């Protein structure tokens, strides 16, 4: 067990008898401050999940509820001339119909109209009765074709547009200093979120107030955007989300079907539920944009990087795609960097943030490049990375990291996987099955959002309730809230009542970008510390000692100088004489420091040279995310991130029919996702050290980090196994066979 840093607030626990772990050598270290934080705590709401009682948006059936359906454009590009809703409206069972567009259609699946009917089948029939007159226009869905001169224009501006540029130093100078220069191009395909629970919204109006149950990662964003779209004050809208079946970024903003549900409900004066189909999820609710990234860079013979030049063409459909240069700008010490990123627009649905947007693709390219550069330099790839290790952001040219445990991640990861077993020369093995090891580095944000609020209620009977307008997107938010309150007040997590997922509660940010825990946990901790101060003052009077002499024990307050004297938590709470609310807030981030999380993945693979099949044997995932709050759910995050990344690396690919402009992977057979049979051994490792400045608990977010480096680690392991880098995901057997063939022809 690692030593825990002393807390600034002075709240400490009485040492439980026999609790101190490790024996002799541990004795010099501070007594464990937290009884639950850092341990493996099963979810406090686990019973609801395993009994099927956890309420997800689509599980609600209100009296008089109608079912909504969206009519979507069958054309990839068109002008809508006229929409006739009358035939649908006169269909039996149809209670309302609305138009959702009046103008230009830019992709297949763009919403055109919506209906609400007494059941889903009737709503579907009604859609077929809506008469839409289109003027069909030329379209383009392939990024390659969209970039060609004279191809149909997707927006009212050119198909290729500058997205981002960055420069530091001078790459010409860097090039002059380089002794080895390589240029490599990496591609990543479009990946679809496919959350288990498809998107769904249920809306109804009551006394001029709009209430929306939504499957969303962002209740406050949905509320504020709804207010704008419906042109009504935000204080008349309430958005609720209790449980959500996955989002991965696809549920971060307001959706067309949510607006449709609200409008249809207003029209029909009845609740309206709209549940997206799996098919709709496949082709019109976002995806991770494709990339075509070229990195040219150079180093001295000892591995010192002298310049890096990244060029990216990213395809986000009618959206702008992802900026992917962040890892390259930040991770390695390099004085001369040039970045040029371009959006390529096509007539496909807009991409959306997808777990670690930009970083997944950017890391695939950067870490592939580093591996190939190491091979060119005949260096250990890990040594190359350590050679260019940075302590400050922007490649050692910016401000210092408040904490950076990457070196420890490298060390623990390499040790656990047995890094010395790798092929010293890529592809040096023999036989039909080739083994290889690869590694990749991760950087992400995840410092949390200052100003996040939470309330803690203490009832005079000693019961406690935590209230925060955050949302649990599957990570175990309720559990860490309960754990933090329990550890601050000397209670048990199970006894804290948790209320989250409602815009009537104090504000919290969207649950995306690894920001939920480092936003919400400190706010709750702040509220609980304020409660502790108040309760200690009451206890001090009872114990007849100054408040600073009062310590929090288990369900009790104790006089530190005289541990025999104590008073129970309930007795002290009773003295509050009313329900008392303690308001907590996540404080500002100190300036002058960069706050990032770090990690390194090590993968071991087998490649079958005859079939081209890749089998991932083992993944060691080492992460530094500050203090680990709940080791059990943290492990799940890492295992989940690795598995999703493995699935995207080997199988997942959205395919389009270029001639029809249509998505052809519209179900989970055609769009293949990993199952239990594909899962390797996964070993999560945490460098568990609280950041000294980031917040009152020293925690960073963990949502995105485990998703970031895995594809690169697997690709690099394949490179180590067969001596040729795939440079593309997904790494399907046909890709591997084709690169082996090309290599053989050389």
């Amino acid at each position, binding site marked *: 067990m690692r030593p825990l840093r002393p807390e600034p607030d002075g709240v400490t626990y009485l040492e439980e008898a026999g609790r101190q772990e490790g024996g002799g050598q541990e004795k010099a270290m501070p007594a464990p401050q937290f009884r639950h934080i850092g341990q493996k705590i099963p979810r406090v709401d686990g019973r609801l999940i395993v009994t099927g009682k956890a309420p997800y948006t689509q599980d609600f059936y209100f009296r008089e509820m109608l079912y909504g359906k969206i009519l979507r454009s069958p054309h990839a590009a068109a002008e809508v001339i006229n929409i006739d809703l009358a035939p649908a409206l006169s269909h039996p*069972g149809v209670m309302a119909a609305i138009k959702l567009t009046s103008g230009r259609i830019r992709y297949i699946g763009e919403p055109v109209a919506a209906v609400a009917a007494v059941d889903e089948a009737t709503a579907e*029939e009604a859609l077929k009765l809506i008469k839409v007159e289109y003027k069909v226009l030329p379209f383009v869905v392939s990024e390659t074709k969209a970039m060609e001169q004279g191809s149909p224009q997707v927006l009212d501006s050119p198909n290729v547009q500058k997205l981002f540029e960055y420069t530091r130093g001078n790459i010409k100078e860097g090039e002059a200093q380089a002794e080895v220069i390589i240029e490599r191009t990496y591609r990543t395909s479009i990946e679809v979120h496919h959350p288990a629970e498809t998107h769904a919204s249920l809306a109804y109006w009551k006394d001029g107030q709009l209430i929306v149950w939504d499957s969303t990662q962002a209740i406050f964003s949905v509320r504020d955007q709804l207010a704008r779209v419906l042109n009504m004050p935000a204080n008349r809208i309430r958005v609720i989300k209790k449980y959500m079946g*996955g989002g991965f970024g696809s549920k971060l903003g307001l959706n067309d079907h949510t607006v449709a549900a609200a409008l249809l409900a207003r029209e029909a004066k009845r609740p309206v539920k709209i549940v997206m189909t799996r098919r709709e999820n496949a082709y019109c609710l976002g995806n991770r944009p494709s990339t075509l990234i070229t990195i040219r860079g150079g180093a001295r013979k000892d591995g010192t990087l002298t310049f890096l030049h990244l060029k990216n063409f990213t395809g986000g459909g009618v959206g702008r795609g992802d900026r992917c240069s962040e890892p390259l700008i930040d991770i390695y010490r390099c004085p001369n960097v040039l970045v040029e990123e371009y959006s390529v627009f096509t007539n496909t649905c807009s991409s959306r943030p997808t777990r670690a947007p930009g970083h997944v693709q950017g890391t695939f390219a950067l870490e592939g490049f580093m591996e190939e550069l190491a091979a060119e330099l005949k260096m250990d790839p890990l040594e190359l990375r350590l050679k260019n290790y940075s302590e400050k952001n922007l490649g050692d040219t910016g401000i210092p990291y408040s904490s950076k445990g990457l070196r420890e991640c490298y060390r623990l990861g390499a040790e656990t996987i047995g890094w010395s077993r790798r092929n010293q020369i890529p592809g040096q093995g023999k036989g039909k099955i080739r083994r290889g090891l690869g590694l990749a580095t991760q950087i992400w944000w995840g410092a949390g959002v200052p100003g996040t609020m939470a309330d803690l209620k203490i009832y005079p009977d000693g019961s406690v309730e935590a209230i925060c307008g955050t949302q649990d997107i599957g990570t175990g938010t309720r559990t860490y809230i309960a754990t933090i309150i329990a550890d601050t007040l000397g209670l048990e997590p199970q006894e804290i009542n948790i209320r989250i997922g409602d815009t009537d509660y104090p504000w919290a940010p969207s649950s995306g970008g690894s920001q939920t825990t480092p936003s919400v946990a400190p706010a709750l901790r702040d509220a609980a510390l304020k409660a502790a101060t108040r309760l200690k003052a009451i206890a001090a009077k009872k114990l007849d000692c100054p408040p600073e002499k009062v310590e929090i024990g288990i369900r009790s307050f104790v006089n530190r100088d005289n541990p025999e004297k104590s008073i129970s938590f309930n007795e002290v709470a009773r003295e509050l004489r009313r329900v008392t609310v303690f308001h907590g807030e996540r404080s500002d981030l100190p300036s002058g420091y960069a706050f990032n999380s770090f990690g390194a993945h090590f993968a071991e693979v087998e490649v079958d040279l005859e079939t081209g099949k890749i089998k991932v044997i083992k993944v060691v995932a080492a992460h530094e995310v500050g203090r680990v709050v709940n080791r059990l759910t943290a492990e*799940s995050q890492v295992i989940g991130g690795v598995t999703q990344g493995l699935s995207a690396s080997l199988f997942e690919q959205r395919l389009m029919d270029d001639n029809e402009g249509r998505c052809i992977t519209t179900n989970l057979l055609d769009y293949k996702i990993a199952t239990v049979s594909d899962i390797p051994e996964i070993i999560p490792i945490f460098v568990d050290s609280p950041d000294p400045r980031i917040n009152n608990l020293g925690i960073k977010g963990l949502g995105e980090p485990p998703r970031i480096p895995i594809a690169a680690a697997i690709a690099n392991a394949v490179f180590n196994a067969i001596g040729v880098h795939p440079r593309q995901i997904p790494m399907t057997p046909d890709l591997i066979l084709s690169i082996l063939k090309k290599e053989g022809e050389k």
Partner: protein
Amino acid sequence: MAENIKKGKKGISRRDFLKGLGGGAVGTAVVTHLIKPASAAPSLEPGELLQLSKKVISFVLNGKEIQVEVEPGESLLDLLREKLHLTGTKRICNHGTCGGCTVLVDNQAVYSCLYPAFRAEGKNVLTIEGLAQGEKLHPVQQAFLDHDAYQCGFCTPGFIMATLALLRQKASPSPEEIKVGLNGNICRCGNHLKILEAVKALASQKGGML
């Protein structure tokens, strides 16, 4: 639905027609009506047609005998969720590709989205709601909870039911057999490893308590 029928106009919609076709023996009767007397008796309203093609079935659901009216084309999943509001069984793909809607029919795991509701007649159907005994969780549920063998929890009922079917077939499956048994289920959060750990722990327990 009632309003739909009341507001019904003349003629038969495609849906009612298809429903008539899909109803097995009852359906055949309806089609006969449709082809023969329909022309002779144009007064047949869509509502009546639908009524004719419906069928009352009885089966054991979570240990209790129930009687319920089902429509042709209605899946067991539709029946459970939309009609009986047993929402623990989840609709993930509605296509027989993900296992999210797995329930047990006579101890066999089935994808309820592909299973016609009328076929449940006389059978024993077990859903996630039928596992816990009051406050006491079923051992499979407890194992999933203890191992954090879920994240968002949406695929969990399906995985738990698939696990139960597997363990009822074989109390101590090997790791390979566990993988085969659970291969028809998708966990999009990717927590398969924890699921496998939970099931391995159950498989190593002695006794036929499941």
